[in-house]
């Protein structure tokens, strides 16, 4: 309350808030508004004929069984990516948290994948897994595994989960490492004196204390899997075979940029936007509550 009186008039506060407000308005609210408006219209690519279509685009989306399949597939993909990347990151963080020689080097190396562009990461995975030119792919085929992710729904899903999760391991690793370092040593010492062994100690002391970090990472990983994996999927499978790896984001791109179906694509982005708003609200609520208690 007191702080408000520091400013004599309205001009200075407005001037200070204005840049941020304008940025938000121009780069977030205005495009989002455009997307909402487009989702209610039916228009040709050039915008020559644009007619108000009400909720037609949404009705068409949700009556299309292929779209409903895509929602389920995306949910599965989000869970799989989060589970794989978080468990790997936690494992690595636990090891890197120990007193070992050269741990700065290990940590730096573990963080480095985060700096690689998604398309580049996908190319590296192609060089590993492609059935004809990838080292692992060729090896699998030579040893009697029929490996061809261009023509196998499950293998394709496995490949994009692996590639997407790998990219996120570094990010999760940093947070888990910080979380582990903030676990009070005294508590662990006490547990040790009570005779709690390694795994037992981790399960009953460390992991519960990591819960806020874990929850935060679950949300971040879900959002990552839904939105930031487009480059990886596009480079690896383009959503195929069939529609086996077509997540909602891939479908937005395909319908909007390739098929130039602006109305439907906008409706899909509005659906996605609602999803993110929901996830973020959940996160704020949960973390806010934890802080206040």
């Amino acid at each position, binding site marked *: 309350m007191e702080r408000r009186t520091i400013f004599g008039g309205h001009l200075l506060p407005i001037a200070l808030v204005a840049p941020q407000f304008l940025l938000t308005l121009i780069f977030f609210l205005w495009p989002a508004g455009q997307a909402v408006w487009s989702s209610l219209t039916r*228009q*040709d*690519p050039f915008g020559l004929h644009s007619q108000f279509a009400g909720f037609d685009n949404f009705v068409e989306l949700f009556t299309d069984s292929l779209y409903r399949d895509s929602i389920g597939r995306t949910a599965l993909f989000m869970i799989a990516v989060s589970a794989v990347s978080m468990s790997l990151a936690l494992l690595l963080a636990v090891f890197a948290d120990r007193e070992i020689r050269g741990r700065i080097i290990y940590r730096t190396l573990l963080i480095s994948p985060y700096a690689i562009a998604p398309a580049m990461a996908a190319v590296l995975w192609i060089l590993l897994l492609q059935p004809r030119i990838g080292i692992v792919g060729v090896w699998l085929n030579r040893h009697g595994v029929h490996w061809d992710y261009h023509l196998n729904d499950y293998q394709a899903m496995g490949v994009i989960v692996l590639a997407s999760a790998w990219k996120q391991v570094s990010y999760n690793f940093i947070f888990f490492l910080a979380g582990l370092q903030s676990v009070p040593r005294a508590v662990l010492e006490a547990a040790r004196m009570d005779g709690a062994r390694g795994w037992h100690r981790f399960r009953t002391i460390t992991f519960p204390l990591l819960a806020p970090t874990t929850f935060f990472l679950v949300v971040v990983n879900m959002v990552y899997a839904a939105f930031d994996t487009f480059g990886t999927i596009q480079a690896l499978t383009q959503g195929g075979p*069939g529609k086996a790896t077509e997540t909602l984001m891939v479908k937005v791109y395909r319908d909007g940029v390739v*098929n130039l*179906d602006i109305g439907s694509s906008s409706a899909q982005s509005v659906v996605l936007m609602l999803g993110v708003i929901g996830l973020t609200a959940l996160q704020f609520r949960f973390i806010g509550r934890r802080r206040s208690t």
Partner: protein
Amino acid sequence: MKRRTLLAASAATPLASIGRARGQAGKLQIVWWHAMTGVNADEIGRLARAFGESQPEAEVLPIFKGGYADVLTAAIAAWRADQAPHLVQIFEVGTGSMLAAGPATKQVWKLAEETGVVLDPSIYIPGVRGYYSLTDGRLASMPFNSSTAVMWYNKDAFAAAGLDPEKAPATWSDVVSSARAIKAKIGTPEMGAVKSPVTSSWMIWVQLEQYGAIHDLPFATKANGFEGLDAELKFNGPAQVKQWDRLLGMAKEGLYEYGGRDTVPDALFYSGQAAIAFGSSAGRGQIAANAKFKWAAAPLPIDPEINPNPINSIIGGASLWTMTTKQRSVAEYKAIAQFLKFLGTPEQDAHFHQTTGYVPVTFGGYEKSKADGYYEKQPGADVPIKQLARGTMTANSRGLRLGRLSEIRNILYEETEKALQGQQSGKEALDNGVSRGNRVLREFQKSVGG
């Protein structure tokens, strides 16, 4: 090569603020967005320079805008912001969308009429011209880089399998028997790197669209969409179902390797892993640069029981569309028309054909290449041209004029990939393709107010 083009493009972009159509030397500047990379991009640069030197008024600034789909999207966004470039290179499947673009484009016949520059459609090869013409024969866009589908085969692998390397399989039953002969020898030292007998790039374009065209089978009603937006897909006829079942059967037998969508399977051929590959005739340069074995191009195989007298195949590639802005002057349109005319001269067309592997789009360019002795030096380089000029063109072989055709192709890839995994039959794949594709066509029809 590619990096240089990208750098040049990004350096040139600020210059290309379209409102200012004057180049450095006070010349009119014509901005041209294209999607070519490598050797093809160099050739685009050469054409622009040659035009600039050929006359004093105008110069052409080519800008690389990404892949074909990116160019189309960028052009649409630019037009909506009244910042469209003068010329854009649009792939053949985008033709339907561009034709529905009304005031955004100035079609070739109108450009000629308004500027007084004579752009004679009859100098262009009919197979190419037809694809980009209105039903009454007026040219809508300017034919540019065109290719068609051909069959490439590895002569060494043919010899190793005891087949005649000078005689390519002419019918599909020959293809199947050759594939079996090759398969029997896979793993032997003579066969070398070959791991699968047959593969196909652009599977939908080659095995369904081209297959239909050469056998005179309709892909859609209304003359494949040329005669109206209310066309309905028809590619699930008995002949096409038979063709799909055959490919699925070959895949099951280990004779056909799917390899992936679009151009992904290309590498299987020139790395020597597939002995027979279907693909774009424009792949010639790439194959010549990469293949470490003897190879040749052959016409697409036919099914004589369906049609013993195959007709012309259809083209792929792209054409050039003139775009409008509110303040674009008559002088600029005139310069565009002169550049389009320049591209159609025999010298330029022949040079483009011989350096890139695309077919000549004019009779003049073809004659000039013959006179240059190009086909003696490059045996088989005229296979696509002869195939394009074969027989009398019908409503089924003029091309496809369907809105959102690339989406329909994607649907067919999806359905076919399901069939290849054994989840459905060839007939089901094509039937689903028809019903899902028809929904796309109706959506397009509604969106353009047809």
